[in-house]
């Protein structure tokens, strides 16, 4: 169990770094889907089966395919526009990211009472999850469904609108 956690988190971090730093966009999306899968594995490790499965279903099944489609439709496959001044940009990026990281790690370390929190061996059954989703969390559920329909209609309108004007 312990080895599994460290192995998966190493894979997670390495593929995340690759996902953002590779030049060929196809490999980027591939590494992004490895990130999604390994975070789903972490969810399974944390005994949140339902969320792990939903993560795989939505992220790897749909989001990765969408990203691939987007990469296919836009021509610049290998982003070559690294002009000379690029180095400075990277250093800015690294600086801000590490600043944020330092702040987060600082906040984690300052929390003293985290250590004795032990994992409760309670496994939420999917049935109770479903019940709770439709009773206690009905409002977020309805808002999420509203948002999904809005996003679907928005996506289509953006794609379609272009066709009307150009034809």
């Amino acid at each position, binding site marked *: 169990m312990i080895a599994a956690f460290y192995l998966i988190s190493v894979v997670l971090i390495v593929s995340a770094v690759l996902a953002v730093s590779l030049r060929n966009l*196809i490999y980027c999306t591939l590494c992004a889907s490895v990130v999604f899968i390994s975070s789903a594995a972490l969810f399974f490790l944390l005994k949140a089966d*339902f969320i792990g*499965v939903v993560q795989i279903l939505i992220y790897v*099944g749909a989001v*990765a*395919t969408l990203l*691939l489609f987007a990469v296919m439709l836009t021509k610049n496959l290998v982003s070559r526009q690294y002009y000379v001044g690029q180095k400075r940009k990277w250093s800015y990026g690294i600086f801000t990211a590490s600043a944020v990281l330092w702040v987060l790690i600082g906040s984690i370390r300052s929390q003293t009472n985290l250590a004795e929190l032990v994992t409760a061996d309670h*496994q939420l059954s999917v*049935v109770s999850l479903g019940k709770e989703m439709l009773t206690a969390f009905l409002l977020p559920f309805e808002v999420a469904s509203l948002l999904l329909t809005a996003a679907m209609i928005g996506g289509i309108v953006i794609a379609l609108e272009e066709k009307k004007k150009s034809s």
Partner: protein
Amino acid sequence: MLDPRFRGSDIKECMENLDQIFVQAKRTVMNLAESVLPQPLVLLVSMLISIGVIAAIGPVIMMYLTWLERKVVGRIQNRIGPNRVGKFGLLQPIADGIKMLTKEDIVPEGADHILHFLSPVLVVVPALLVLGLLPWGRNMAAVDLQVGLLLFFAITSTGTLSIFLGAWGSRNKFSLLGALRAVAQLISYEIPQVFSAVVVIMHTQTISIVEIVNAQPGFNWFVFTPWGFTGLVLFYIASVAECNRTPFDLPEAESEIVAGFHTEYSGMKFALFYMAEFLQVFSLSALAAALFLGGWQGPFLPSWIWFFLKTYGLIFIMLWFRGTFPRLRVDQLMGFAWKFLLPMSMINIVVVGIWTYASPIVAWVLGILIIAISFGVLAKLNTRYHIERNRKFILAE
């Protein structure tokens, strides 16, 4: 003919042993392992046994599915099918396997070597992974997850991604066309497939496949209910499309785009694509059998024989489709998924709702009524052209 001393209970008891024969085999190996190995390794041994069995059964199933397909489609076309290699052509799959191994493995010039190599592997992984979730017999499911069915759909949906990567990796217009068609088809048939499985989840209140099978003891399988039968038909048609099989095999249409997304693959890589397709045929038929035909539930025979009987019955229907149907056009393919399968499976969910809360007679009558009416309406909406009954033919004098 039977020895009179052989009482009925002996037959039942021997069937019982035969039923649990694999489970006991594994238990004996486990006891052996427990006595020898330290505790964490025992868990590893049990995992390895299951993985080993599935990894052995997977390819064998795939090989003999190719043989079965060539025999059945042959017999449909009034010819014999392979019978030269081995007694009934039984060694034909092995001959094909060797041929695949020895074929030269060509990577198109300018193709993306990493993707070209990676994608056949990525296609086979979900197909094999899913075999672990299936209940092969009474307490013979390798993995009994509480979210079994949902994980099944999640894993099969990752297959779409690797098909697309494979086609992009081979830098060939035909394979890219095939991949675009394949992704469109797989995504648009995944929704009716999941919806028609939701019907069973609503009835049995669980997502774990093993419990769904347990909820169909003896002979009262779900297929004998109105919503169960329509659910099976819808699920089965959607899974035929999901495996890119005959009426829906647009992505690898030989006549139009050479071989679709696996045009540029030869030798072992093509064999992997082929294996993924047939393993998916097996696993989706097994799932359809588990959800609607009561997986390994059956009156007399041992449980795993029932499992294989039902699965190969459904596979025979898929091969029967292969021998019968021409290929659908892209718009018919898409229209059928969105304009017929999806509304029909939603109506099916309504019927299950009625089924759980109404009394049996009302449920039966209403169920059949709603399904019949909705089928008629949807059929009416979907028929675009009207076939004249009595056409007058003017023959050339």
